């Protein structure tokens, strides 16, 4: 009788004890199929952030990481190396130029530095009065003048304000630009808010979001041209495109309404069936 217990026990111990010898297989399996991209994502944060928050660094360096953590970039997983280059997964090589480390840009290089990602905005800016002045004289507004550097927040219409703009010129011109942007910007903000609402209700809005952000980026690039006439002329096109998204949004809301009505119909059906079943059970009880 005992052999029925001993044999499986021996087999079980055998399986468990051979576990470590299979570690290399498991490691390969996990790296190949399961951990990516989470494994890399976990590594990215370690080298830059760990070093810049260590005691070896001064308070101004600590502040940089803190500002980044609260930024719009951090919320969207745009990490240190996405702008500054380098190898965040390897502390010893993280700041080697051979590994693509760019460090901090000089003032004149700032537009190109940010333009690595914001390509359309860079092109628009370079053709604008702001960009031409900055490139020719080295003075005038560049990206960080209006948006800051590490504590970058989501840009809104509020960025055009008297305090900021009147540092270089009168506010009248800026105000005219703000008025020209207003209609499309408010529509952009409404559509984005509704898309978020739909997304959180479980509706897949990937396609609408892609279309939205393409237009959003296009309009933002246009606004960096600081050309009031161009903005006014093209606003109509953007409004039409946003209305296409709005009509799709309405369809999604109709779909949500249909689901609710469908559930409600089934609810009524089962309430009716419950009543029938209850009366039936009571009638059999009386018999």
């Amino acid at each position, binding site marked *: 009788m005992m052999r029925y217990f001993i044999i499986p026990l021996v087999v079980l111990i055998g399986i468990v004890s051979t576990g470590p010898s299979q570690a290399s297989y498991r490691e390969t399996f*996990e790296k190949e*199929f*399961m*951990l*990516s*991209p*989470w*494994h890399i*994502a*976990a590594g990215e*944060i370690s080298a830059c952030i760990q070093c810049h928050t260590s005691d070896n660094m001064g308070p101004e360096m600590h502040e940089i990481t803190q500002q980044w953590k609260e930024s719009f970039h951090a*919320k969207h*997983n745009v990490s240190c190396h996405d702008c500054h280059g380098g190898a965040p997964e390897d502390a010893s090589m993280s700041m080697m130029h051979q590994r693509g480390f760019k460090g901090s840009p000089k003032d004149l290089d700032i537009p190109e530095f940010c333009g690595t990602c914001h390509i359309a905005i860079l092109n628009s800016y370079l053709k604008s009065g702001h960009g031409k002045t900055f490139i020719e004289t080295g003075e005038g507004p560049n990206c960080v003048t209006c948006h800051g550097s590490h504590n970058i927040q989501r840009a809104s219409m509020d960025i055009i304000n008297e305090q900021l703009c009147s540092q270089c010129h009168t506010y009248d011109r800026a105000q005219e630009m703000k008025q020209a942007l207003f209609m499309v910007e408010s529509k952009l903000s409404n559509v984005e808010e509704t898309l978020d609402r739909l*997304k*959180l*209700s*479980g*509706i*897949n809005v*990937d396609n609408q979001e892609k279309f939205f952000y393409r237009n959003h980026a296009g309009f933002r690039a246009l606004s960096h041209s600081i050309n009031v006439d161009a903005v006014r002329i093209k606003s109509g096109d953007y409004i039409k495109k946003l209305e296409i998204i709005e009509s799709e949004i309405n369809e999604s809301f109709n779909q949500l309404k249909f*689901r*609710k009505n*469908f*559930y*409600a119909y*089934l*609810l009524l059906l*089962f*309430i009716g*069936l*419950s009543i029938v*079943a*209850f009366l*039936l*059970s009571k009638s*059999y*009880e009386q018999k």
Partner: protein
Amino acid sequence: MWGKIIHWIEVRIGLEELVNKHLREFHTPKGATFWSTFGFVVLIAFIVQVITGIMLLLYYIPHPEYAFKSVQTITNEIPYGWLFRSIHNVGGNILMAAIIIHLVHVFLRVSYKKPREITWVTGVLMFFLVQFTLISGHLLPWHQTGFWQTTVTSSVPAFIPVIGEGISSYLRGGEFVTGVTLSRYFSFHVVILPVFIVALIFLHVLLIRRQGLSTSAIVEPDTDTAPSDEFRREVHLESQPCFPNFATKRLFIVMSYCTVLFFIMTFFPNLFLPAEANIQADPMATPELIRPAWYFLAPYQLLKIIPNDILGISLITIFCVVLLFWPFFDPTDTGRNIHKRPLLLSLALIVLVLWAILTIWGMYS
């Protein structure tokens, strides 16, 4: 035509005899009320979960890069995929609630006493397994809520001394919740646990069929006597045939289950799918509030309020073991009428009130 079909089946499988033997001749006691039908609701709710689960399985992809997208596709692209997903999601929670109601009812009726000890043990085992099945199911859509709930719940076994870390690590397949965890939880949720649950259901139902349905010692005081040492089906003088009398009661309660299901889906569609459950899992973005599912809140809160982790996990383990083997802890010479057992009634009420307090506390802390 209909008669011919019935006759064709009758000749081959003896349908008439089958119905007579298992439904008409199987009598249920007078004390079998609507509350006694909750076990049947659990069975139906489980079948609903299996059917909707299979429908979801046709399109679900258990990989971190595709899991969320595949669930989004099921909900938005596949015809009526939203209906199956919603029923599976809400149905799981109702299943858990029905099990708890059934468990409390059986306890308060003291139906677990001899000869029904094994029935109780299999029932409580199913309660634990269903709980783990639901918890493992939370991770599968790979959304923020499920990802972080799993991070929390899979760390609970780590409090057990010596073997705890190993259990947590085994569940996650490593130190953190990753694709390996998703793969494991998928296996647990879809194959391993359901196989055990189905086996236990068979055993549980077989025992009920053999021993007969338990009755209330309050309604039928005759049953409050010491059971025989030999196998003997209880005799109930005022019993009724299972079909149609008790079957209509079951029908009513199953219809009520469907009503509750669609009531929640109509008026509270996001009750078990909060906004964060529509955002893809992001290990780099910890939500402000991480809270396990409602049925796991009480043990979770207990662990939070007891400063000593080992003491907390020991209390939970002891409670689970005592609950599982309760029929063997309950003195054999005591009766089944709960009104004559104030200590047992107080114990049940204290446990229920504590569970409710811890759950509400966990919900708002």
